[in-house]
């Protein structure tokens, strides 16, 4: 009995953690290029709503749903929508050298607006009670491994998720490999540490920053898609995504800018996010205090890391600064 509820807890923690993992992996890649993209919460909203729009039009266009198309259309829509958002950010901060914090916050306002406007309008026109459901599409996204049921708790913990959850882990592992083991990853890191040095070494700083930010944005957008298609079973409700985008940014710090650490971190954060539901006998007020946990833990990590001053645990040196070759 006890064991079963622990298995449920872990499974729920993973499901909570996956959107954060997508978001933080995307943000890590972005930050490695020196761009502190505070627009990630907005980008994740847009990723989610683009997926909903894609799924909506596909579901309405056909009677018998082709599983492949039902997955690929929302997926591409989410990637395109969130990459476009990241492109706006890139254009403003890289080409027009605008302040990154201000641009990011504006992007978040804009993105949440876009998400709630289109999601909310679809819900008003075609949905019921302020939300709209993409059940058919969601069922395909949520298909677990066929043998998950037969393996008991083990199957529940490891094999009960939709394909996007596994993709999130693969993407993070790939990002970790790319950043630490490839030449182009080294170049990307050097752009984030010292763009002028990278520039002098012949690295195309602008290209790296653009690509890293847009690809990072697209990955983060998948977090929004996962949330809608898997976590909420395809139901869009305005504002339901909540503050997960900011939590993803917190996770970047918690994982010390390492995508592979982010995998465990996301599950831990997911667990902290819902632990209040699993502790018996909590009053409603102490539940609210428990919800503080992920943020408090992040603050502690932030403080300890800055005190220890270990070089490999620090944020990229030029994080938050625009690069202009002629400036010194």
């Amino acid at each position, binding site marked *: 009995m006890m064991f079963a509820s622990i298995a449920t807890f872990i499974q729920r923690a993973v499901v909570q953690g996956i959107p954060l993992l997508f978001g933080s992996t995307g943000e890590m890649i972005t930050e490695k290029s020196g761009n502190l993209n505070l627009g990630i919460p907005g980008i994740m909203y847009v990723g989610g709503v683009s997926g909903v729009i894609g799924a909506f039009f596909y579901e309405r266009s056909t009677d018998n749903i082709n599983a492949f198309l039902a997955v690929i259309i929302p997926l591409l829509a989410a990637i395109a929508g969130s990459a476009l958002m990241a492109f706006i950010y890139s254009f*403003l901060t890289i080409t027009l050298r605008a*302040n990154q914090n201000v641009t990011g916050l*504006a992007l978040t306002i*804009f993105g949440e*607006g876009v998400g709630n406007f289109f999601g909310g309008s679809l819900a008003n026109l075609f949905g019921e009670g302020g939300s709209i459901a993409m059940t058919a599409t969601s069922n395909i996204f949520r298909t677990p491994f066929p043998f998950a049921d037969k393996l008991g708790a083990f199957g529940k913990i490891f094999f009960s998720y939709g394909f996007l959850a596994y993709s999130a882990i693969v993407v993070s592992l790939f990002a970790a490999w790319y950043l630490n083991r490839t030449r182009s990853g080294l170049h990307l890191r050097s752009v984030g540490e010292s763009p002028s040095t990278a520039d002098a070494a012949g690295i195309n700083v602008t290209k790296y920053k653009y690509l890293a930010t847009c690809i990072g944005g697209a990955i983060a957008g998948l977090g929004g898609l996962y949330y809608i298609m898997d976590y909420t079973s395809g139901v869009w409700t305005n504002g339901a995504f909540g503050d997960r985008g*900011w939590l993803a940014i917190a996770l970047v710090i918690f994982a010390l800018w390492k995508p592979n650490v982010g995998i465990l971190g996301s599950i831990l954060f997911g667990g902290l996010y819902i632990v209040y539901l699993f502790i018996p006998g909590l009053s409603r007020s102490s539940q609210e205090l428990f919800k503080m946990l992920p943020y408090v833990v*992040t*603050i502690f990590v932030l403080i300890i890391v800055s005190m220890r001053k270990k070089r490999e645990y620090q944020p990229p040196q030029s994080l938050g600064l625009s690069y202009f070759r002629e400036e010194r």
Partner: protein
Amino acid sequence: MSKASEKAKEPLFHIAKRPSMPMWKSWLIRIAAIAAALIVCAAIVVMLTDLNPIEVYVSMFNGAFGSKRKIWSLLQNIAILLCISLAVTPAFKMRFWNIGAEGQVLAGCLATAACMILIGDKLPSPVLILIMVIASIAAGALWSVIPAFFKANWNTNETLFTLMMNYVAIQLVSFFITIWENPKGSASIGIINMNSQAGWFPSLFGQKYLINIIIVAVLTVLMYIYLKYSKHGYEIAVVGESENTARYVGMNVKKVIIRTAALSGALCGVAGLLLVAGTDHTMSTETAGGQGFTAIMVSWLAKFNPLLMIFTSFLIVFLEKGASEIAMAFRLNESIADILTGIILFFIIGCEFFVNYQIIFNKKHKEGK
């Protein structure tokens, strides 16, 4: 080798920093950007709704200035946003990226509400309000001194720290809401001291928001003087430009950072006070309503000049009010306001490039030269 360099493409243009631009010219660029943004917004609204754009803008104006009540509520919203913008300004000038204004405002709200609920009926009104002022200022200041202390001593990243502090504050507020719930089970604390009105700001000349507006107006002038003419203001500017220079000339950088952050948080606390005691007479996690983030734009758009912030905060509040009026009048989703605000912000943010930099087109070199 030489062939390759001959064939190397010469870029069509390059970008250089402008020496400086006359004031009127830079404002012309900004106004042009806003105009361009309004055209894009109109295009989007028309695309989504098939409405006549002029009609849309007329209803925007109505939303902001349509009636006496609307004008007062416009002024009130400007006052609060301006107050938070003033608060974040000294910190930004010092390059202390305080994006925790939201949490600091909530800390101020919480302190105010606590005073009103716990000792509201036990003290005479002037004493109570004095205690509320002190408590809210202290709470706001505390909320920003914590990150500042770590920033000053260990250079802990303040952007991320203050961001996290927002959520700690939000959860604290929801914690106390469940404790002070009224009526039980409503998940809100209702109007505080509904009958006794203890701790409510008095209305002046029959206008309940007037006192907020006056307080913020005074603060605006004080902040302008503080930043421009006081020794502290000068220190803030020096630390912001270069910490090393500040250290070299013998300033106590740590002290300046903590003091400025405390001031920033204290003013956020005042905004919280104005929101709870002067406006809503209640508190929720939505009381700050994202204005802590909006204030950053207001301050930045005004180039950290408190007097210009009156204009920029007016602009933002006007847009929000106008856009929500559009939403209501044409039965659109409320969130159109955020989309339009976002677009206008993008344009304003982007146009600074043309104020600070110029694009120089390279002349073509002749073949074989």
